[in-house]
């Protein structure tokens, strides 16, 4: 599903975030991407979502070499994966349902189909009944679940999450991780970047540990 091949990433500031990272994630796997902050976790996810491009080396997503994807094709590419952010990145002036519906609206789905899928996604994250609420009326944990519902509503084969529990207390964090686990169980490939080692010990998933821009253990 995902293959990094000797990937280097140096930002314009001169910071070298990744210095020759190689790993493979198979379809249907659930993987924790971990390591201290600044180890390059976010860079890996940004390279997967084509928010950044590698300075050197190659990134394959869905058996496709991402270096061959032209900027014009990036929107289409992003519709094929779900992304969850630490800060949720919700639109605060729109109700929950509209936030979750956004990927489907962009993809041009029918209104009836959108309504159905939005309800299903909200049901999966346990927020049914909150459709008309504004994001800021919800708790942080609920907001994060809205973000997850938005990431899965278009039924992507790949779900990536950058520190999804960064702002949550331990109990809520476990719930969120269980949610990811459940999506993985129905066949979605899940990559979660987190520095919370205690949390992921409760889940028997594979870990890729990054340190100083390299893979420390896999």
């Amino acid at each position: 599903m995902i293959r990094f091949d000797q990937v280097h990433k140096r930002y314009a500031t001169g910071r070298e975030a990744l210095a020759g990272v190689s790993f493979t994630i198979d379809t249907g796997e659930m993987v924790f991407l971990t390591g201290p902050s600044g180890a390059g976790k976010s860079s890996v996810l940004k390279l997967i979502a084509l928010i950044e491009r590698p300075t050197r080396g190659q990134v394959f997503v869905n058996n496709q070499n991402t270096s061959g994807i032209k900027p014009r094709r990036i929107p289409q590419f992003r519709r094929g994966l779900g992304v969850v952010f630490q800060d949720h990145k919700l639109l605060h002036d729109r109700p929950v349902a509209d936030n979750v519906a956004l990927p489907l609206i962009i993809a041009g789905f029918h209104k009836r189909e959108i309504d159905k899928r939005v309800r299903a996604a909200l049901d999966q994250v346990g927020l049914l009944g909150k459709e008309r609420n504004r994001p800021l009326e919800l708790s942080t944990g609920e907001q994060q679940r809205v973000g997850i519902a938005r990431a899965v509503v278009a039924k992507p084969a790949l779900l990536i999450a950058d520190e999804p529990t960064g702002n949550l207390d331990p109990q809520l964090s476990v719930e969120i991780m269980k949610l990811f686990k459940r999506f993985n169980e129905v066949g979605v490939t899940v990559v979660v970047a987190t520095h919370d080692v205690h949390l992921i010990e409760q889940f028997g998933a594979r870990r890729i540990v990054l340190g100083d821009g390299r893979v420390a253990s896999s």
Partner: protein
Amino acid sequence: MNIQAYFMRHAQTLVGSLGRVVHQPFATLMTMGVIGLALALPLFLDLALQNVRTATGNWNDALDVSVYMDKRASSARTATVAKLLRQRDDVAAVRIITADQALAQFRDASGFGKALDALEGNPLPDTLIVTPTLIAGTPQGMEALKGAIAAMADVQTVQLDTDWVKRLRAMLDLLRRVVVLTGGLLGAGVVLIVGNTIRLEILNRRAEIEVMKLVGASDGFARRPFLYSGIWYGLGGGLTALILVFIAGAVLSKPVEGLARLYGSQYHLVGLGFLTCLRVLALSLGLAWLGSWLAATRHIRGIDPT
């Protein structure tokens, strides 16, 4: 994407952008007002010009040539010249105003009666008012007629009354160009105004555009609501311009008719036609759309999620 969903989506975006435009009534009205003023000015000037043209349009046909005879010429000679002129193809009519008649008219009209009595003789010459035929009433025809009369014996001066009309025409032509130029500049101004407004809107909603791009929105998708905002601005601005010009017309129509009456005319102001109104709205829409397209295309491309 199927067609129905596509149109549905466009309709929703259109209404959604209207909602946002209405949500900030003050800013929206300001923008529409500026567009309206910018378009109303050239439109108003153009209408004024059109009215002057219409008002002076049929004067060319009724133009006469004034022929002043030499003072030493006898009245019999004047009658002969009049007869010769009547025989010409390009002359419709000739009216003789004898020196005595002219003096009498002048005495009545000027109020200088006493002063005129003090003069020893009649200082005025015999005059012929020559009316050309309609066919000869072109500028070239008039020039030819003028030359021919001037060449006749005992004719002192031939005065073509087209001269001032020609000057008026030239002036109107010049003004017309000024209007077109002004219109062009103000039209460009509308593009810039809308462009800048849309640019600010995009900056305000930068985070939202970033999120949309993150979940797979193309630049075109993110741009669409701003294009629709531009269309609303254009529509509102165009309507504002039309309303302003209508108000100006209503304010001016009475005085203009009063003025025309003083000149013995039944002139009525030429207003905006239905087609012109449609054209103004289309132009306003087009300019605003162009402005929003330029701004949205440029600034949305520059927003990349990080």
